[in-house]
């Protein structure tokens, strides 16, 4: 029998990757994006971005735990979908929300640390997305892996950005904090699983 061109996991990853965008476009065309569609796009793309980043981060530890060797092969695609939604998020902010009015953007951004954190995270994502082509993987060799460790910095930045984007107060443990808590908890867990002592135990299982 001929081998299938795509594995089931591959189909799942790419299906899941495009689905939120299709859903967003569908809701846009059917007038289903709330009375404030720009904010809805901004928030939904933000959530999708962080979700795919976490999926991507989950591949390596889950591969050890489940002994599923294909998983790490898919983390790059998942990360790229994370970048796709981050790009939609950022483009929505600059183009739809602010109409590229740089003066207004600067006036508002300069005073909002959560936007600055988001912007740093996005700038750090750019080289990762740009080097995701096979050409760069080959060319950079070992440095490719080193470069992509930036995601360990990007993830906490995005989690803090998420917390601060919500109407709550972490120090008081009050307000709209459940969702960022959930994502923050997962992010911390996924990063902890990479600490050498924990990692060693995982791979022994």
């Amino acid at each position, binding site marked *: 029998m001929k081998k299938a061109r795509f594995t089931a996991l591959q189909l799942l990853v790419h299906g899941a990757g495009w689905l939120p965008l299709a859903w967003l476009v569908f809701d*846009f065309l059917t007038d289903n994006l709330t*009375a404030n569609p720009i904010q809805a796009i901004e928030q939904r793309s933000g959530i999708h971005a962080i979700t795919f980043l976490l999926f991507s981060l989950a591949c390596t530890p889950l591969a050890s735990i489940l002994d599923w060797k294909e998983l790490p092969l898919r983390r790059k695609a998942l990360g790229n979908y994370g970048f796709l939604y981050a790009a939609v998020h950022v483009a929505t902010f600059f183009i739809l929300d602010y*109409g590229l009015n740089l003066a*207004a953007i600067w*006036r508002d951004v300069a*005073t909002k640390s959560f936007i600055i954190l988001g912007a740093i995270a996005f700038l750090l994502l750019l080289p990762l997305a740009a080097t995701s082509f096979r050409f760069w993987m080959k060319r950079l060799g070992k440095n490719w892996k080193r470069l992509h460790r930036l995601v360990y910095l990007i993830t906490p930045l995005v989690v803090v950005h998420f917390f601060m984007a919500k*109407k709550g107060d972490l120090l*008081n443990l009050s307000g709209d904090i459940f969702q960022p808590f959930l994502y923050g908890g997962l992010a911390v867990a996924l990063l902890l699983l990479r600490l050498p002592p924990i990692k060693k135990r995982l791979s022994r299982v």
Partner: protein
Amino acid sequence: MNSPIPSSEITPKQAYLSRRDFIKAAGILAGSMALAACAPDLLNAPASDPAELTTSAKTDELGDPLNSHKDIINYNNYYEFTTDKEGVARLAQNFPTSPWDVEVSGLVKTPRKFGVEDLIKSFPPEERIYRLRCVEAWSMVIPWLGFPLSKLLNLVEPTSAAKYVRFETVFKPAEMPGLKEPWYPWPYQEGLRLDEAMHDLTFLATGLYGGELPAQSGGGIRLVVPWKYGFKSIKAIVKIELTAEQPATMWSAIAPNEYGFYANVNPAVDHPRWSQASERRIGELARRDTLPFNGYAEQVASLYEGMDLAKNY
């Protein structure tokens, strides 16, 4: 001067401009870099379906059109139900708003419980077209029905010791699923200084768009203080209490560095999360500049003479 905002007869419930038209306009424009610049013209262009654009000639006193009834009753910040603005209307659809009682107590000569039905009989509803500016940097123009809060307060006669007014929202966890969230210091409460409360613009709304005030918009009865951020305009009020001390308010209890007691709309005082210098009018694409006191400076700025508004945010 306490000049009320002019308004004429009751507004019909037609949408000024449906969201579908907006989406259409947005669709035509999508991809265009000049999006923001040309949007307003497109939005004013005649819609393909004239029935959809039964333009209510009504505007606020600055000439801006009313938001559609549909948008007003389907986009609500009402955390007692859910933090999802579009989900409130559905969760509130069976919430009973009538009969509704409000207890007025504290430093008053004649504490009393009022039925909203009786209040409507005593104070025939007038229409006020007010801008509502949410702290999240979106805004709407809304035609309320109701009466000035001062009429109710005069009825109970605040004593000379009364300096503030405290308001409390109904607490019914069985009917308001959001109240199960442990992260908020329920019940919702708000407060005004007595002179703010007695100002003619300060309004108790019992109706909307010429009809009833639906549960998601704050029925049985809600406060509307148009020169303050929307969260000051507390919904579903069951208690009004005159006090000597400044009352605690829900959002300033949650994040005191973000939400103050006064919460006057002020483009010069920034918020760590949302731009307070500009806002999006629901139904429009481009941002517009936020006005000091939400455009009511002439009527209310004198209330704050000599105060540092950056400190008393």
